[in-house]
Structure formats: C-alpha cells, structure tokens
C-alpha cells in the first residue's frame, strides 16, 4: 500500500511573547517575570495515511488540529521529527486566500489557481468548470472588491475544489453561500470522496465525519490521543453523548 502522509515524531513549538517592546522586556526581566513561554502545539505525533484513506481529524479547540494540518500542507515545518507527503496536496484550506480586491474575478481565478499550484494550461482547461461552479454570471469580469462575501467565498471554493489533488485536505466550513450552493458543494464533496482520493478532513461535526471518513485521529493538547475507527473516535470524544447533534450539526457546514 502506498503511504501518502508519513508523520514521524513531529513536534512544533510556539513561543508566546508577553512583551513586545524593549522597555517592557527590560522591566519584566528586572522584576523577575517571565518574558516568554513556549508550548508544543503539536507534540511528538506519529502516524501515516495510506492511499485512499479518508481520515477525519477531530479534537477540541486549541488541541493542535490546525497546526498539524499546517505541517501537512507545508505552511509550517516541524521543529523536530518529520512530515513527508506524496503528490500534490490541495483542497479546502483557506479558500480565497490571496484574492486581490483590485483585480477582476477572472484574474483572481487564475491567480488563486496558480497559488494552489496549477499551471496556466491546467487552469485554462478547467476554466469553464470553475466558472460554472462559482456561478458568478456577469460579475466574473468585475473587480472582486465589489463582490458580496458569498460570491467571494463561492469563487474561492470553486477554484479550490477543482484542483486535482493526490491528498485532499479540508479545513473549513464545507458549505458556503446560500442553500443551492451548499447542495452543490455537498454533491461535489461526495464525488471527491467517491473518487477514492486520500482525504484529510478536520471537523467538529460527527455527522460529516461519519459520512466522509473511514478513520479518525483525535488530538488532545498537541498529542495524538486516538487513532482508529470512526464510531469509537466519536465516542472517545464524547461527541455522541446527547441528542443535540441531530440538527444542522450533522450536516456539512458547521465546522471550526
């Protein structure tokens, strides 16, 4: 089986600075107070993901999920240990990041695709599909500055979801925009899952983890607390305790 993600004893420490200016630092030192503190956001985490696995990453706020995801996507590098991946990583991470308000939707589409690692030829080939999906109509050639927030989100989502990924990462509300667009997103996500792509999905919603994933990782204070079956994982987190999850929570869309 092909290993797609291999994380070995990865640790990422953050420094908390209590003071910013020289004066404050000197004063704090003089009074014998701490000037900074470090903590491990990701602490000695080891696991690997094989081709075709759909992994749900869960955990309480501040448990290190996002940092782990940033290590895997390559935004951050571990202080010790290693994170290795195979092929292209793409997906729903920070969709729409890097949009330039001074540029038109079309220009931003190309820019965003390039940031996500697509070539011009690839973008040209997918252009119609992306535009159809975003459904911006005549606003495509308008400056993004005049877009509504929903339109902006739709464009970002459409680009992100159309990048061919070997590892598909999702770390945000899967459904943006109005109800028809939400449906479209859900359908698209189901297609991606059905295609059998290796997936890494961060969520608080047990419902969507159940439908999308076949394995769950749970982060606890930077450490990997659980790695295994979906139902057991959700139980481990006590997310199946009460009946409140039935509503919107079980659908796609209430994440992070």
């Amino acid at each position: 089986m092909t290993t797609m993600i291999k994380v070995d004893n990865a640790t990422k420490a953050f420094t908390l600075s209590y003071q910013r200016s020289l004066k404050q630092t000197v004063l704090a030192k003089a009074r014998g107070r701490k000037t900074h503190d470090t903590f491990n956001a990701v602490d000695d985490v080891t696991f690997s993901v094989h081709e075709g696995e759909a992994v749900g990453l869960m955990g309480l706020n501040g448990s290190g999920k996002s940092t782990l995801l940033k290590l895997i996507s390559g935004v951050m590098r571990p202080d010790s240990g290693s994170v290795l991946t195979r092929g292209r990583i793409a997906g729903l991470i920070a969709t729409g990041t890097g949009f330039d308000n001074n540029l038109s939707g079309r220009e931003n589409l190309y820019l965003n695709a390039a940031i996500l690692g697509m070539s011009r030829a690839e973008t040209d080939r997918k252009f119609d599909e992306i535009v159809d999906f975003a459904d911006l109509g005549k606003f495509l050639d308008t400056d993004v500055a005049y877009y509504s927030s929903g339109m902006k989100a739709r464009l970002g989502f459409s680009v992100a979801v159309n990048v061919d990924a070997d590892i598909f990462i999702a770390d945000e509300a899967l459904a943006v925009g109005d109800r028809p667009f939400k449906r479209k997103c859900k359908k698209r996500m189901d297609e991606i899952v059905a295609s059998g792509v290796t997936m890494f999905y961060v969520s608080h919603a047990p419902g969507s983890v159940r439908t999308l994933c076949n394995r769950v990782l749970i982060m606890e204070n930077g450490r990997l607390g659980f790695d295994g079956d979906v139902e057991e994982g959700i139980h481990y987190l006590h997310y199946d305790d009460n009946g409140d999850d039935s509503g919107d929570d079980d659908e796609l869309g209430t994440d992070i």
Partner: protein
Amino acid sequence: MSERLVSSTPAEPARRTVSELDALPLAPPAATGLSEVVRRRYLLGMLVRNTIKSRYQGTVLGWVWSYLQPAIRFCMFYFLFQVMIGRGSSMENFAIHLFAGMVIVHFFTETFNGGTQSLVQNRSLITKLPVPREMFPVARMLVAGWHTIPMLIILLVPCLLLGWKPDLVGMAAALLGFSLTAALGLALGLLFSVGNVFMRDVGKIAQTLTQFVTFSVPMMYPYTLVHERFGDSVAGYYLFNPMAEAVLLIQRGFWIGTTSDPDATAAVHMPDHLFTRGLIMLAVSLVLLVLAQRIFARLEAKVPERL
C-alpha cells in the same frame, strides 16, 4: 442552470493511478528556496503582473503615470540645475548626471524597501498556504525593475537629443551597474524581509538606510567633489559602497556620452579601474545574496507563526 451543472461536472477529478503515485517521492510537503521560485515562475509572473496592474488601478491615465512622474521630475531637475543654478558651467549636463543616478537608486530602494515589507504585506497568504517565501522579495525586485523601464526611457530621450550614441563599453557599464544593484537589492531585501517579521524595527532601519543611500552616492554631486574635498583615502572608502559604483557605472553608460568630450569627462569624473571595481562589487553582492538566502532559509521556518 443547476441541471447543466450537474452534467458538466465530471464525477472523477482526474487523478493519478496508484502506480503513478508510487513513482512519486515521499517528500516534505512544500519545497522552498530560490530554485523553487524559478520552478514556479508562472505564479511569480502573475504576482509581478498583478502588483504592477494594481498600482494604477482606478486611474484614468493608467500606465501613462509611470512616464509622467519621472518626466516631470526630470524637467524639475533640468530647470533647477541647468537653468537656475547654472551648474552647467562647471559640469556638463548635470541634470542627466543626477537623473541617471536616480534611476538606479530608485531601482535599488524599491527593491530593498519593497522586499523588506513583502513578507509582512503578504501575511494572509503566507500563514495559510504553502508558497515559497522567497517569492515575495523576488517579485518586488522584478516589479521595481519593471518600473525602472519608463525612467530609463525618460533618461534616453534627452540623452539622444544631446547627441548620445550607445557604445559597447557604456552599455556594458550600465548592465554591470544594474546587475550589481539587482543582486545587492535582492540580498538585502531577503535579509531584511525575514528580519522584519521578527522585529518590525528592521523595516524602519531599512527606510533609514535607503535615505542614507541617496546621499552617499555621487548623483547630487560629482564624484570629483569627494576626491577634491577629502583626498584619496576617504574617496577610497567612499567607493566601498557598492551603490556608489553602480551609480558611476550608469553615469558611464549614459551621462558620459552626452558630454562634448566623453574621454576627457571620463578621465576627470570617473574613478580609476571602474570596471574592476564594479566586477568586484558584483561578486561581493552575489556572495551576499547566497548568504542572505542561507539566513533566510534558516529563519523562514519560523515565519508563519511570527507573522
């Protein structure tokens, strides 16, 4: 609409087969370094184009401004130095002497200052998506280079009117000057950009340094003045400033050719061994660039969390 969409969205995002995936290496998720910037030149080109485009966004005249501004500046210099103060008596075409220096100094300061701010300005992108971080200072250098073109053209027009003809030595000098400035500006841009992430004071230091550059190069005064007033030893130190060489090289390329006796002007106003000095400074700048890249690579891992 939605019906059409359903049919037009293929169920399979085209993906690699398992054997194709097997052939790929298991590697750190995001490659970095200047070589990665070259590899992703499509994105680099797009960043540069967009930065240039958004500068004159919403203006009626658009790119005309990039000619208008330097043209007006040149006219001001011409009026001030040639007509009003009458510097022409002691030095021929002082306005060109000054403007040629300004072109290269402007290129340098924009590369340096722009590069210094580039990481902080692209914070939202850098903290969320894996993009080679070197790309931002490099993009700023290319943007600065692009903005230099209109200034060069504005410089060329009076040069040609004054009977300047391109000569091989002069062009080589100008090219050397630009290469040296590009390497130095990028090296400092890389170094200061990453420093600026950790301490915003670094940005202020960069601004102060660029002010210093404007006055520490022979453009508002001739190099001979330094030599006359302070003698050989100080002039020797003065020439340790790579930007002084760069400015002199550009003046060798453009200003010298506009004077009535270029050889005599060069003999009086250019230091000895100009090309040797220029090449040494280019080598120094390139070494500095390699070092800057090394330091950048070492500190860069901490950039996303400190931004």
